[in-house]
């Protein structure tokens, strides 16, 4: 069967495959944001981490020849931006939302500045598992090429859920996020915990960025990110601060973003640019429908709501 014979079935398969492909960066940034928010702080600057991760990961992969080294460096770059964010936010009267916007502008500018040299060269790509090699349909095979980072994310989401529920450190993060006073009474260093949570979240966002440049779309340029890092905050609300739900939410949003290209592949090009808005419209609609002025969200860390 070729694409045209598959018709709308092909669109469905392409959207499902796209959900994984486009959803992977969403998964990493939303897990990172989830971890940071669980500690009671919002990092709106993950877009900067994502783009810095994409640039540094691509650059290092190109220079060293190893895509995995690129992923690691991308994570470290994200972590360093998280460090700056964390250190700034623990100063008195410094607003974490505003710092996030500043970090977004700074990270983006820095990535464009340092990344100028890497727009042309071709870096090695991350490997994928060809789970669809049994099929002779090219659509199915393309959809079943599962990238390795997605599998890492697939393991990471339940691991993080377990960490929050059972691990000592997970409980510490939750306590700090739930009530600063209770954490202080327990003798915890609130700022230190939040700093580490922001750095770890930044690391994950950086890794998510490296996916963009090293797998899909798989090159470095200045229009690489379309706000995945910014969407993270909305995704985490959508996922009710639950890492497992972050996985589902990322797939839904990845699918929404893959809708336009999938329809285009079967010849429906009319509203292509309008379909680009699908993930944003979906997020906005979900937020309007599920928010309430009367009560706070179930699962929302207490420190985030009382301000």
């Amino acid at each position: 069967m070729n694409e045209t014979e598959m018709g709308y079935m092909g669109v469905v398969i392409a959207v499902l495959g796209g959900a994984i492909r486009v959803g992977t960066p969403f998964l990493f940034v939303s897990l990172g944001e989830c971890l940071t928010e669980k500690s009671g702080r919002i990092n709106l600057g993950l877009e900067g981490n994502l783009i810095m991760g994409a640039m540094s990961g691509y650059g290092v992969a190109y220079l060293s020849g190893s895509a995995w080294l690129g992923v690691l460096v991308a994570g470290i770059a994200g972590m360093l931006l998280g460090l700056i964010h964390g250190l700034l936010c623990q100063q008195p009267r410094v607003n974490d939302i505003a710092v996030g916007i500043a970090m977004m502008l700074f990270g983006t500018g820095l990535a464009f500045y340092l990344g100028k040299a890497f727009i042309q060269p071709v870096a090695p790509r991350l490997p994928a598992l060809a789970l669809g090699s049994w099929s002779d349909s090219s659509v199915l095979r393309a959809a079943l090429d599962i990238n390795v980072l997605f599998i890492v994310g697939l393991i990471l989401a339940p691991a993080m859920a377990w960490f929050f529920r059972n691990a000592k450190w997970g409980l510490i993060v939750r306590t700090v996020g739930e009530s600063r006073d209770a954490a202080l009474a327990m003798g915890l260093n609130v700022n230190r915990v939040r700093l580490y949570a922001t750095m770890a979240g930044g690391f994950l966002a950086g890794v998510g960025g490296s996916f963009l440049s090293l797998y899909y779309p798989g090159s470095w340029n200045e229009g690489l990110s379309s706000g995945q890092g910014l969407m993270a905050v909305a995704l985490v609300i959508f996922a009710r601060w639950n890492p497992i739900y972050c996985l589902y939410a990322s797939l839904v949003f990845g699918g929404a973003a893959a809708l336009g290209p999938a329809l285009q592949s079967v010849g429906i090009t009319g509203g292509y640019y309008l379909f680009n808005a699908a993930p944003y419209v979906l997020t906005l609609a979900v937020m309007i429908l599920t928010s309430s002025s009367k009560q706070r969200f179930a699962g929302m860390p207490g420190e985030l709501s009382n301000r």
Partner: protein
Amino acid sequence: MWSYIESIAIPVAALLLSLVIFSVFILFSGANAIDVLEAIFRGAFGSWFSWQNTLVRAAPLMLTAICTALPARIGLIVIGGEGAMVAGGLAAAMIGIALNGLPPLLVISSMVLTGSLIGGLWIAAVGAFKHYRNVNETISSLLLNYIAIAVLNFLVLGILRDPASLNKPSSYPIGDANMIGNIGDTSIHGGLIFGVVTCLILWFVMRRTTFGFAVDMIGGNRRAAQLSGLAVGKLVIVTCFIAGAAAGLAGMIEIAAVQGRANTSLNAGYGYAGILVAFLARHNPLAIIPVALLLGGIRASSGLLQRNFDLPDATTLVLQGIIFIVILASEAFYGKLNWFKPKVVTA
């Protein structure tokens, strides 16, 4: 009095510190930092030519900064200036194209009204979502940026596309007669007047009217404002509308004074830079005017840096980012600098 000194001394010190950090950054990339700073100054304010360049860039910044500053006064962090500018500019262009041929004064005023109306509704929606559904305004305004840009691309690359525009897909032109001309024989367009006048009016409104007082009161303590009988919801939505209208006006100016047609130049980042201007100006409409000049100057010098030092055009983005971060960090010093305070004799 000391608080006035403080509110000028701290931002100035922060700006100087940003320049130092930026210089270190430039040194690392192998250029002479002093030369680069000198070139930024020359590109921004060194000659009449660069002044004109700066002023043209400052005009939309003043308006998009209002889009963040005004909601900030009422306690909302709105970063939707980019989207409101695109939506307003696009709507203005559509009206301009539709009315092309009628008397220019009528066309231009319809464009001003439509641009501000659509931009205003764009951000008023953010305020309404916040008030009625408690949707985080920062996120919703950001999502609306992307939605506006998608609609712009859809229309400009679709039904509005002028087949004659090959290199840069654009809509049909609004017509030369309907363009806002330049001031005198300069290359500064009339948009600057819109920007300055809007800032001045809003400064007066925020300082001298009951409305401004109510806005600041809600921003200071929402609960207290509610208990004292203020219609918080209505005021939030009206404030957001004015904020969005300013950004929509910026879009209209970009269309009617610069581009002459709608294209992707509408989302050139003025909305995001406006956020920085608003925070630097501490959300004071009067302070926005000089800060917009400063930022406009930095943006204007970008080309000179590229030509003279072979630095990437993102250099000025890095500088803006550093300034933003240092300014925010400087918030921690307010009220801490005792040498500004007069000695208070306590009994």
